């Protein structure tokens, strides 16, 4: 089988298949509506990139470190001198 005939057959498979769909038309319509709702409405209006919006470009690690630091109780200690490490038991 030549390469051209393969691609022609492949295109015909999809072309004829889509043309002859019955139930498939309804399903594709639903898929289309669903993808529109998911990617256009939900993604753009309801699901922003939280870190992208709140952290400076290139400072995302600092932002997350700050966010995690806020969740501790008490907050982490300040840097210490040698032999004065509050981390050590």
């Amino acid at each position, binding site marked *: 089988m030549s390469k051209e005939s393969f691609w022609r*057959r492949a295109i*015909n*498979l*999809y072309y*004829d*298949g*889509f043309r*002859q769909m019955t*139930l*498939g038309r*309804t*399903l*594709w319509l*639903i*898929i289309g509506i*669903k*993808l529109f*709702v*998911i*990617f256009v409405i*939900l*993604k753009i209006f*309801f*699901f*922003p*990139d*939280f*870190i992208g919006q709140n952290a400076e470009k290139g400072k*995302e*690690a*600092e932002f*997350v*470190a700050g*966010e*995690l*630091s*806020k*969740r*501790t*109780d008490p907050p*982490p*200690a*300040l*840097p*210490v*001198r*040698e032999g004065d*490490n*509050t*981390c*050590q*038991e």
Partner: protein
Amino acid sequence: MNLLSIDPAAIDWARAQFALTAIYHWLFVPLTLGVGLIMAIIETKYYRTGDAFWRRAAQFWQRLFGINFAMGVATGIILEFEFGTNWSNYSWFVGDIFGAPLAIEGIVAFFMESTFVAVMYFGWEKVSRGFHLASTWLTWLGATISAWWILVANSWMQYPVGCEFNPDTMRNEMTSFLDVALSPFAIDKFCHTVISSWIVGAVFVVAVSAWYLLKKREAERALALKSLRIGAIVGLIAAVLAGATGHKSAQTVAAVQPMKLAAMEALYDGGNAQGLKIIEGIEVPYALSFMATNDFNGFVPGINDILKGYTREDGTVEPSAQEKRERGQMAITALENYRRLKADEKTFADQDPDGYITAAKEKQLAILKENMPYFGYGYIKDEAELVPPVAVNFWAFRVMVGFGGLFILFFAYILFLNWRKKDISSMKWLLWLSIILVPCAYICSESGWLVAEFGRQPWTIQDMLPVAASVSDIGSGAVATTFWLFLALFTTMLAVEINIMLKQIKKGDPLLTPPQGGE
């Protein structure tokens, strides 16, 4: 909860939204995996016999498969949106690891499923019988491989392996792809989850067949009887295998998430030779020890043992919750100190010729690495937070196992009647039971996920990051709004699917003729 600046309601709404989306998504996945297997088996019968009946039977089940497939496609994408918005700390912290299997899943799902689904639906007159059969099996295999990668990602949250935390980037980085992809937790979870999905598909096929027999639909009678038998065979094999893989999963959970197992059993004070509770007050002696350790006398720690710390049978000591919290706090403090010293190192490079800052930074890094296995415990304020919701775990586990046992009996009974050549079509109670079991199969399947996910609480990533630290500092109002929006959207979509599915089942296939060998 340990929340100094986070709106507690935001955590609850974010969890509720994620649970809603995941539960909804999981309505479609098991049916795709289960019906996919059965339609491929039926088409294999066509390939082997050349009987047009099997071809039309395969096409009939492929239509129902297609409806479910179309309704379920892309519903999982919403979970990924939620990661970026509601769970941004989590996403950043582990995105490099968690993202890899999700990306592979996306590529596999798109290329493999979209190619072979097209051949399966459009190719009946265009390709050879063998190529078409291969496409049908590959459609099912593509869906199964997709499930594999999603379950790998989930398993990593339950049992984080193959990674190392980089304090400079605040990310966990993958050190071994194979450790992540082939972790024992992932293998057990995949086997148990996929095989139990076959049960959902088998129950669905048996129920649809039973409905045709109840309605005395002559055109579909042969389809119903043949499909019912194949569904029952697949269902029985799957139900037995689900029991075996469930046993293996329980052992893995006992080894890496003992608190989850203790919550599943409402076991507060453990010990050797533990019995398995049927319900509170009634138990099977030694069964829990056997389930967890493969030894009737094996040691199973209870919730209090885990909180106080205990010694395993191999002599290793599991630290107490208090010690883990202290070590977690040391890790968090060391991380903070490391990052400050690193900034100082750059700022005061000219004023620190002896390298004091660098040495101090390295020391903090060593402390961080030593205590990193308990990092998440540093965010836990009260030890009670470490206990998952016991009642949910206890009952969800019993619902799952109870229905699993019922399905073994149900499918075995159908096959027994079939073997004795009894007329199943006249047994109305059995046909109605078959239909009633469809929602039960879904409840069973979802209960498995409830055990897996409630049992992991309070962690998003076991021992590494609790939910309170994972969630974004986002207002609860925004998350609540999208929760209700999703509820409305998902309910509508589900109603549409059920409507289309029922119409297609009622339509049936009036052109079906009995197989060459008779019913």
